[in-house]
């Protein structure tokens, strides 16, 4: 039996499950208010689709299986790619889609969970600063809905780093190394790394500046402008500036930091990228960005932007912050009956259920002790029928009378 016990701590308790569900409901409602419609993808996806798309989940991180015809399938390691493919292949699809799906990744070690829930949106066909900013605003809106008081959205740009390393004579291994150094803001080791490359001084200066292009957007944009090396980088900064202006109109600039050293491990991003942190939680709770070139890989050019909330992390962060709502675990009515009352009690229970009350029934003669609390109790016992509520006893004769009494009592509650 021992083996069944390992991993049991991953299972949510019923209360936690309710809480996670209500969190998902909150997010979905917010998605809808921005015009998104729900879609879904299949859990089993073709391995070839993921393997052929450049810059996606690493093949080691996918959980693979084989279908009866011998094709390799993977358990959905990402939702954006199948949704993008569907958009690219089918004509006339609604272009604002949201989803809540489980994602599967091969865990690095046995202590990690290979399955997590992601709730996200994808918006196709628009490619403006307004659209970028609206995405960020939606992310902020969700964190507000979830009652987080302190949070930050870090915004970077996938293009900035790529355009900069175009100026450097790097092998793939070296550019991976440089990416690592920038991601860890490791200025100590960037310097000797660049010295070995014999590049011009102003390029060295620009690369060294990137990790610290972080913080207040105004400051970051001004500093970034001073190290621009080519026209593309200038355009990138211009577009970030524009996005920031729209964010100011949304009045959410206080929740924003710019980080031009931000690099997402998903290589398909082409424009702004962002991730959200909430105070007191050590991992990002949402991430996303613009990926204008992904649909092209499925044969159709179509700009797109999206982000995903990592529901499990949001849930743990809410728990850590003590922001979880109370879950009502009681029912409205418990009906107690004995052998003389059974023929009245069970039909009465069903009538109340049809009116929307939450009803439990209990045979007083069997000793079963269900412990679900209820607001009031109804009794069909010793040939009598009555409601008991707050030390009061109210008798009734018919099912209609019971319903009227209940309505009164519930209103007073």
């Amino acid at each position, binding site marked *: 039996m021992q083996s069944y016990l390992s991993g049991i701590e991953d299972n949510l308790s019923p209360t936690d499950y309710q809480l996670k569900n209500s969190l998902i409901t909150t997010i979905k409602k917010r998605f809808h208010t921005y015009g998104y419609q729900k879609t879904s993808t299949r859990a089993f996806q073709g391995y070839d689709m993921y393997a052929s798309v450049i810059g996606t989940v690493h093949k080691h991180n996918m959980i693979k299986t084989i279908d009866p015809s011998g094709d390799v399938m993977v358990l959905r390691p990402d939702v954006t790619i199948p949704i993008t493919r569907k958009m690219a292949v089918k004509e006339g699809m609604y272009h604002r889609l949201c989803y809540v799906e489980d994602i599967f990744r091969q865990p690095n070690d046995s202590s990690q969970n290979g399955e997590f829930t992601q709730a996200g949106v994808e918006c196709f066909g628009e490619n403006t600063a307004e659209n970028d900013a609206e995405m960020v605003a939606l992310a902020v809106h969700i964190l507000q809905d979830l009652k987080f008081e302190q949070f930050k959205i*870090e915004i970077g740009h996938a293009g900035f780093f790529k355009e900069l390393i175009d100026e450097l004579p790097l092998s793939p291994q070296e550019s991976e190394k440089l990416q690592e150094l920038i991601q860890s803001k490791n200025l100590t080791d960037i310097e000797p790394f660049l010295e070995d490359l014999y590049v011009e001084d102003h390029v060295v200066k620009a690369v060294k500046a990137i990790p610290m292009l972080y913080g207040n957007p105004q400051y970051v944009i001004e500093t970034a402008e001073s190290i621009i090396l080519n026209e593309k980088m200038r355009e990138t900064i211009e577009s970030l500036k524009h996005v920031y202006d729209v964010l100011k109109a949304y009045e959410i600039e206080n929740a924003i930091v710019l980080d031009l050293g931000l690099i997402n491990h998903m290589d398909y991003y082409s424009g702004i990228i962002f991730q959200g942190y909430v105070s007191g939680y050590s991992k990002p709770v949402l991430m996303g960005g613009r990926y204008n070139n992904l649909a092209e890989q499925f044969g159709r050019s179509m700009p797109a932007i999206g982000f995903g909330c990592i529901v499990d992390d949001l849930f743990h962060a809410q728990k850590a912050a003590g922001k979880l709502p109370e879950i009502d675990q009681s029912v409205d009515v418990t009906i107690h009956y004995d052998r003389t009352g059974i023929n009245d009690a069970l039909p009465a229970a069903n009538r109340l259920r049809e009116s929307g009350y939450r009803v439990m029934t209990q045979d007083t003669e069997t000793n079963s002790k269900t412990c679900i609390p209820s607001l009031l109790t109804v009794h069909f016992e010793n040939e009598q029928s009555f409601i008991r509520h707050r030390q009061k006893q109210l008798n009734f004769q018919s099912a209609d009378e019971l319903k009227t009494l209940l309505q009164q009592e519930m209103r007073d509650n």
Partner: protein
Amino acid sequence: MITLALAKGRTADDSIKLLEQAGIHFDHLNSKSRKLVFYDTAGMVKLIFVKALDVPTYVENGAADMGIVGKDNIMESQADIYEILDLKLGRCKFAVAGFNGTHPSNNNVLTVASKYPAVAEKHFHKKKIPINTIKLNGSVELAPLIGLADVIVDIVETGNTLRENGLTILEEMDSVSTRLIVNKASFTTKSESVHKMIHTLQTGLE
């Protein structure tokens, strides 16, 4: 309040001295003490002492906002953190060491003993030399002597221990020194106090 994880051992005393220099004072702080948690007199920093290799783990998971730890342990843990400052303490070097003249032969897979198996694997992988790693927790120099491994990968300060055991450095690898690391979320959500702390240490270094 910022939680700072400090590596026990080799560099603990020097790190404490550096914090004092930067104006962060702790009462009754002593690395020999068995107490593991200390608060600074200004009430800004909570200092926790943890095993060196655990410092990056504490910081990556947000159990500490910042950490002071050797580059050797950062490399071994492969933690996803910011590595902000070189505190220039405890400088040494990673090296491959063994008996003079040991070469990875073409026929046999090289056996490498190390306290840093991830570092060793990465190094030889880059050189396309297949190896078997044996993880040891101390007295690594012993491994080649008694035939447990062909070579070792370890940090070398003076080289005395190697020499006394008849081993030599076969290849020098990355340099190591003590670093200030920061949790990525704390860097963003506690940015004011974190940046102040970075700045304080930076001035302490100068």
